[in-house]
Structures are given as structure tokens and as C-alpha cells.
């Protein structure tokens, strides 16, 4: 048993597939009743991490502890306290929504009565009552994802793994999913979720860990991350023959440049005052700004900040074939 009060502890996790080093020493902690977002581009190793934590894959080195139980040495104990919702909905097409939930309840070793009651509760809470007696084959993508999540909640597990829970969802279903996740946290569930979007991590998570090429490049609260990355991005398009001059003038403030499109990005607090200061500075130096825009930093900006390269997909395009 591990003595700290973190529900999820990950220690020095490594994993390779043949020659491909996918994880090279992951360290993480998630406190009870909080959300950690594992943020990274396609191929960064998010799914691999989740699969190790949910006992589906053995790590080459290191270990992880769920509620004090080792995923390597006590997989059965771990399985009893986790719920897993994978990247693609894994529900039985030929059964109805209700049958799926009851089956999962019984496989989690609930009594028949409990499995039934929980099934009905979840059907109602996830707005699947009307579809309860239809086979899943007839469900939309959003409905499948909801059923998939409901299935992993049937035994009220204290720990939940969500692998890209909103990828591929339409905006409405996405908002609904966010709402559910927030309520799960209120119900004291500990959640580790993965996402490719900084905005989503910011929205849902207490802490964010950024994964790149199999290691955590930065970890902290969303405020800590923003303090490092800057709250807002001010993007200026400079008249072509003024571009070099602008870069020199802005100096250390520049976080990203694109000479081809004569673009330059600056990290700012996003206040009108700040923006005015920058524009006046340009004006004073007779640099012509053709257009400007303010936007929230993206995963790309975070990557630029910490690795010097953008968040391009890490390996191959294999993910696409799974979709």
C-alpha cells in the first residue's frame, strides 16, 4: 500500500512497441475528487497511458497505483474500482441500451436488483430512456458515447478514465458531456481524462499535464500553465516591408512568428490596455499593422512554449484507421 492521499499515482511508467518508444517515464498524481487532463496531440501516448492504468496493457517499467493498488501486481483489485470509457464507444450493437447497462452491472458484480435500478437511473440521467428498448445499432454517435459512459458508471466506481470523451461529438453533445463530467466530480469521482484541446482541459480539469513523445513536459493548474503561456494571444499581421523592424521592436515579447505571412504573435493578458500599449508602440515606430486578432492559446501555443515545436501528430497516421 502506498501512503499518500492521491487516488491515482503513476511512477516512472515506460512502454515500447517493438522499436517505438511510446512512454519514457511518466510521473503523475491525481488527488481524490479532482480531474487531471492529459493533454497531447495524436500519437503522444495518451491512450497507451490509459490502457496501462486500466490494466489492459503491462508497462515495460514503472508502476501505477489506483487507490493504493498496483496495476501490475493487483490488477483484479484495480479493476473493481475503475470505470473506463475508451476513445471509441465499446458497446454491444445487438443489445438494447437497457440490456447493455444491465449486463455491465452484472459483470461489475452488482446484484441483479442493483444492476436494474442503476440501469434505469442512468438511462434517465443520460437522456436515453426513450431509446432504452432499441438496439444500439440504431443509436447516433452521441447516444453511443453517452451509453458508453453510462456503462462505465454503473457500479459507481471511485476512479474514472475517459479517453478523449468529446472527440467526434457535435457541439451540443460535447456540452452535455462536459456537464456530466462536472457533476461526476461533484459526486467525488476522481477522473483522469485525455484531450487534444487546451480549451477543454482548461474547462474541465483541476490540473493539466502536457504529454509529448511519451513524457510529461509540463504539469500544473490551468492558471499556472496560463501564467507561463500567457492568457491570450495577440496576433498581428504587419505590412511586408515593416516585418523585420516589428520583430526587432517587439523583441522578447514575440512567442511565434510566421515570416511568410508576415504574422507575429505576442502573449498578453488580453486587456484593452495591453492591446492598446502594443499598438501604440507600433504606431510610434511607424510600423503599419494591417490586421490584428486576439485568441486563446491553443495546444500548439503550449507546445511552442515548452518544446519549441508545434503540436504536430507525434508518429504516424494510424489513429485515423481506427476511427
Amino acid at each position, binding site marked *: 500500500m502506498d501512503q499518500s492521499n492521491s487516488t491515482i499515482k503513476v511512477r516512472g511508467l515506460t512502454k515500447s512497441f517493438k522499436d517505438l518508444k511510446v512512454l519514457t517515464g511518466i510521473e503523475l498524481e491525481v488527488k481524490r475528487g479532482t480531474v487531471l487532463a492529459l493533454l497531447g496531440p495524436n500519437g503522444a501516448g495518451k491512450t497507451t497511458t490509459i490502457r496501462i492504468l486500466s490494466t489492459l496493457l503491462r508497462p515495460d517499467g514503472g508502476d501505477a497505483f489506483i487507490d493504493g493498488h498496483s496495476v501490475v501486481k493487483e490488477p483484479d483489485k484495480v479493476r473493481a474500482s475503475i470505470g473506463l470509457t475508451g476513445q471509441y464507444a465499446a458497446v454491444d450493437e445487438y443489445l438494447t441500451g437497457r440490456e447493455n447497462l444491465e449486463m455491465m452491472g452484472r459483470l*461489475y458484480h452488482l446484484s441483479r436488483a442493483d444492476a436494474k435500478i442503476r440501469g434505469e437511473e442512468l438511462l434517465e440521467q443520460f437522456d436515453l430512456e426513450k431509446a432504452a428498448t432499441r438496439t444500439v445499432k440504431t443509436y447516433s454517435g452521441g447516444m453511443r458515447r453517452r451509453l458508453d459512459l453510462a456503462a462505465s458508471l454503473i457500479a459507481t466506481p471511485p476512479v474514472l478514465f475517459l479517453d478523449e470523451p468529446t472527440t467526434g461529438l457535435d457541439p*451540443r453533445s460535447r456540452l452535455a458531456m462536459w456537464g456530466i463530467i462536472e457533476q461526476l466530480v461533484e459526486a467525488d469521482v476522481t477522473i483522469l481524462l485525455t484531450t487534444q484541446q487546451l480549451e477543454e482541459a482548461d474547462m474541465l480539469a483541476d490540473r493539466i499535464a502536457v504529454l509529448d513523445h511519451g513524457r510529461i513536459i509540463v504539469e500544473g493548474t490551468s492558471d499556472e500553465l496560463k501564467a507561463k503561456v500567457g492568457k491570450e494571444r495577440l496576433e498581428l499581421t504587419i505590412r511586408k516591408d515593416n516585418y523585420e523592424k516589428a520583430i526587432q521592436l517587439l523583441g522578447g515579447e514575440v512567442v511565434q512568428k510566421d515570416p511568410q505571412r508576415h504574422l507575429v504573435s505576442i502573449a498578453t493578458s488580453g486587456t484593452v490596455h495591453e492591446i492598446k500599449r502594443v499598438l501604440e508602440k507600433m504606431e510610434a515606430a511607424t510600423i503599419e499593422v494591417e490586421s490584428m486578432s486576439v485568441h486563446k492559446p491553443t495546444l500548439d501555443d503550449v507546445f511552442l512554449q515548452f518544446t519549441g515545436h508545434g503540436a504536430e501528430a507525434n508518429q504516424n497516421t494510424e489513429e485515423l484507421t481506427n476511427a
Partner: protein
Amino acid sequence: MKILTYKTRQVKAQEHSSFYWLINDLSVFIERSLKHIFKNKDQLLGLTVQPIMFMMLFRYVFGGAINTGGTTYVNFLVAGILIQSVAFGALTTSLSVATDLQRGIIERFKSLPTVSWGVLMGHVSADLVRNILQSVIMIGVGMLVGFRPTASVTDWFAIAGLILLFTFAISWVAAIMGLVAKTIEAVQWLGFFIIFPFTFASAAFAPTDSMPYALRLFAENQPVTHIIEAVRALMIGTPVGNHIVLSIIWFTGITIIAIPIASYLFRQYSGR
């Protein structure tokens, strides 16, 4: 849009012996696969229409051209077509396993505090039920087109026992094929290449003595021929020889080897 709410009282897993859970988990998986028989239209069609078509095809199209000596062709045919259908029926297990792998359902079951290889047992059990139903349908159709069995009640029980043993063995082999092939397309090819020669290069549709020497050597000594000859002998009273004993040895042996291999492959499976 409805605002989704998540609130719940906590529920707890029950406390029981691990044997209790073994039985619980297996029965959940068996129940699941049995539901598939009736909810999956492909399976229902395969179960009913296909054997009837095969029966008609051989009885009326090829039957006239095949010389079966003293017995009528339809009396000769039923045992062969029965075993052939059962063997192809086992492919449903391969397909179900591959489908579960492709959909990520097996991964999901493996993340549960469950006897997850039970999912294989579920598919194999559904095969047993399906094949019994299918056999009854085929024998019924056979009788409509002139099949006149001479089997006693005990003989019928022996036939049922042999068919169940055969199905059980072949379904575990089919489960292995599903785990190896991993995709539905690959299963179709693999199934064709493995099941086709064993069922057609056998005594299923024609007596082996009309075959060229090499083929005949294979056909007369491979296990599927033994089970066909055994079932045929029990049905219509042709000489039974040692076919029953050899069938039991072969298919018990295959089962004993196939189950550990299937469960090993199942445990080893780790995505893709």
C-alpha cells in the same frame, strides 16, 4: 435539450466466492451471445435459410449424378450436410470474436473485475444452441424431401451427443481463428481456407471411393469424415466401424488442445 444530471446512491459489488463469480460471469456472457442469435439477422438467416438451400441444391441439382450404391442419395446426404453446416456455423464464433475485438468490447470486458475469457465461452455456447436448432431444421427438411432414417431413440441421443462434441471442439478452434484473424474480413478468408477442405474433401457429399488416390487418403482419414460416417451409420444403419470411437478421440483431443490455446491468445491480446 435536456440538462443531464448525474446523481446516485452508491452501490457495492456483492461478496461471494470466486467460484460463484465464475458461474455468474459465464452465465452473463452466455446470455449475451444467446441474445445475439435472435437479434442478429445474419445469424438467423444463416440458421434457417442457408441449410435449406444447401439441402435442395445437393438433393436436386447434384444428387442425381452421384452414385451412393445401395442407399438413396438423400439418405446418404443428410449426415454430410448436417456436419458441413455445423462446421460452417462455427465460423459465427470466429466472426463474433473478431467483431468484439474490432469494436473494443473485449478490451472493455478485460478492464472489468470479471472472468473475461467467458466472452469466448458465451460465443461457443451460442454455437451449441444454434447448431442443435439448425440440425433439427435440417433433419425436418430432409424428411420432407425423402430422408428416411432408421435410427432408434438411443441412436438419436448418440447423434446429438456427437454433434455437440463436434460443435464444441470446432467452435473453440473457431474462437482461435477469430483471435488470430482479428478482423471480420480476415476471418472470412481464414475460415474458408480451413473449413472448406475439411468439409468438402470428406465423405459429406460423395462416397470417398470415387476420389483420386491422394485425395481419398486424406478424405478417409481426416476427422470430419469420421464424424460424418459415424452420424450416417447411426441415422441409416450403414456399417459403423470404428468411426464413433475415432470421432470421440479426435474431437475430445481437439477440444483439450484448443481451449488452452484460445485462453492464452485471449490473455495475450493487447489491442491491434
